C-alpha cells in the first residue's frame, strides 16, 4: 500500500513540468561545475601533485566539491519538490480519498515520503553518472564516492521528511515551500557561529545538516552521522503523521 502511494506520488511529480525542469536545470549546472572542476584539476592540480606520496586524488579534488555543491543545490530545490505533496491534497480535498480508503495515516505519510525519496534517487543517479564517467580514464576511490552518494541520499531523505511535514501544515504550496526553505537554511548554517561560544556551539554543530554531510564527503562513514540523519528524518515523519492525525481529531 505504501508502494502504491509512493508510485502515485512519483508519477504525479512527473506529470507537472516542474520535476522535469528541476532535473534539467540541476543536470546542466552540475555538468558545468563538473567540467570546470575537472579542467582545473587537469591544468593546475595534477602536475603539482604528481609524484607526491599520499596526495589528494581526483576523488577528493573533483568529486567531493561537486557533491558538496550538489548538497546545497538540493537544499534549494527540494522545497519545490515537496511543497505540493500534502498541501495540495488538502486544498483540493483529495486527502479524503486517502483517509476514507483502508489505509492508515502512517502509510499515507510513508508512501509520500518514499515517492519523493525515489525522485531524489533518480536525481542522484544522474548526478553519479558524472564521476562514474571518469572511470574511462582513471580509477576513483570507490569508497569515498559511495560514502559521498550515501551522504547525499541521507541528506535528501531528511529534506524530503522536513518538506513533507511543512507541506502538511498548510493548504498553500508556496507557503510550504518558503517555510521548508527557511528551516533547511537554518539547519544548514546553524553552526556558522560555532567558533565563538563553547557550550552551545557543540549542540549547534551537532544539529547542523552540513557538518554531518561533510563527514561523508571525506569518506568518513560513522554511525554518529548516520544516526543523525535517520533521527532527523524519522522525527519529521512522525511529526507529519501526528499532524494529519490531529487534523482528523480537530477537523
Amino acid at each position, binding site marked *: 500500500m505504501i508502494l*502504491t502511494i509512493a508510485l502515485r506520488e512519483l508519477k504525479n511529480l512527473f506529470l507537472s513540468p516542474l520535476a522535469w525542469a528541476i532535473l534539467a536545470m540541476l543536470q546542466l549546472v552540475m555538468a558545468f561545475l563538473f567540467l570546470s572542476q575537472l579542467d582545473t584539476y587537469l591544468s593546475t592540480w595534477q602536475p603539482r601533485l604528481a609524484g607526491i606520496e599520499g596526495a589528494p586524488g581526483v576523488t577528493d579534488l573533483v568529486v567531493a566539491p561537486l557533491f558538496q555543491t550538489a548538497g546545497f543545490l538540493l537544499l534549494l530545490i527540494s522545497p519545490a519538490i515537496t511543497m505540493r505533496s500534502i498541501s495540495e491534497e488538502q486544498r483540493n480535498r483529495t486527502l479524503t480519498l486517502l483517509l476514507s480508503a483502508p489505509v492508515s495515516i502512517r502509510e499515507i505519510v510513508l508512501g509520500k515520503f518514499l515517492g519523493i525519496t525515489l525522485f531524489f534517487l533518480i536525481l542522484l543517479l544522474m548526478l553519479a553518472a558524472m564521476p562514474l564517467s571518469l572511470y574511462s580514464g582513471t580509477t576513483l576511490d570507490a569508497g569515498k564516492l559511495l560514502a559521498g552518494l550515501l551522504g547525499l541520499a541521507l541528506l535528501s531523505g531528511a529534506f524530503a521528511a522536513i518538506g513533507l511535514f511543512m507541506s502538511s501544515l498548510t493548504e498553500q504550496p508556496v507557503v510550504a515551500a518558503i517555510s521548508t526553505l527557511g528551516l533547511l537554511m537554518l539547519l544548514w548554517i546553524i553552526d556558522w557561529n560555532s567558533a565563538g561560544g563553547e557550550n552551545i556551539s557543540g549542540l549547534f554543530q551537532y544539529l547542523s545538516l552540513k557538518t554531518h554531510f561533510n563527514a561523508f564527503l571525506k569518506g568518513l562513514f560513522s554511525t554518529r552521522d548516520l544516526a543523525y540523519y535517520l533521527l532527523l528524518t524519522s522525527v519529521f515523519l512522525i511529526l507529519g503523521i501526528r499532524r494529519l492525525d490531529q487534523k*482528523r481529531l480537530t477537523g
Partner: protein
Amino acid sequence: MEPIIKHMESKILISVEQLSRYYGHQLAVDHIDFTLSPGEVLGFLGPNGAGKSTTMQMITGNLAPSEGRIQINGIDILDQPRLAKANIGYLPEQPPVYRDLTVDEYLDYCARLHRVSAAQRGQAINRAKRRCGLLAVSRRLIGNLSKGYRQRVGIAQAILHNPAVVILDEPTVGLDPNQIREIRELVRELGETHGIILSTHILPEVQATCTHVQIINEGRLVFSQSMQELEKQLVSHVLVLETREPLTDEVLEKLPGVDRSERLGPSRAKLHFSEKNPAGAVAASIAEHGLGLVELALDRQTLEQVFVELTCRDEHLTTEDAA
C-alpha cells in the same frame, strides 16, 4: 431517539450510537443514533450546517467522533479503522479527484488503494465506468471534464470496490436532469444489494429513491421514519376549495362531512375532514348554492412541509431557549 429499524432481522451494516462531535465548544452533532441494514436507502436531510456532512465524515473515518460509537458491518471504526473502511465507499461533498489524471488512471489508483486484486481490477473499473456512464471519457483528463462528469467519476470511485455501504454526500449536485435520473436509478439499483446513505437538499429525490428518511437539524435527529410510514402520515385530511362567488361563513359551516374550515380568501378555504373524503358531497353542496366550483383538491402534505415544519420550528424553539 430510538433506532429506526427494529424489525429487520438481517445483519446491520451501520450502527451509530450516541454519536457526537464538537468543533471547539460548538456542538455540531448531538448524540445521534441510527442503524442501516442491507437493502435500505437512507435519505439524510437537513438545512445547511445541520451536521449531515460531519456525520458522514465521522462514519467514513475522516473525522474522529467526540463521543459515541460507530460500527460498520459489526466492526468498530475506531478499533479497526482499516477493516471498517474496507466496507465503505464514500463520495464527499467535493469529489476527491485528481485533475492531472485520466479517468482510467484515477480509478486504477482508487482500486489499488482499496486493495482490489490485480485480477479483478480491470473488471471492477469497467463495471463502475459502465454504471456511471463514463466509458466514453476513459482517457480524458479529469480536469478537462465538466462538473457533472467529475461528479460521476466521484461516484464511480465510491462503488468501485463493491463496498457493503455506500455513502453519498449530495451526489446529484451539478448534474443535468437526465443525469440526475440516471444517478437515482443507479442508487435504487445499488440499494437492492447494498446499504446506502444519501444526503441531499432535493426533497423529491428522497421520495424517489429512499426507503428511509432522517431529518437532522442543528445536530439532532428530529425525524426518522421509513418511507412507508411517512407516506401513511402524509395522507391528507385537508381539501382546498375555491369558488367563483365569495363563500359565506354560513355555507362553509354547513358543508357536509367537513369538521372545520379555514379561510384563505373571500372565495377560497381549507376544509379539514377526519374520515372519508367528502369531496363529492362538498361539490354537490357548492353547486346547490350556485357558487360556481373553481377548484376542489386534496391538499397533499409533502415531505417538504414536514421538513420545513421540523427544521424551522426547531430554530424557533432554540432562539427562545437562548433568549
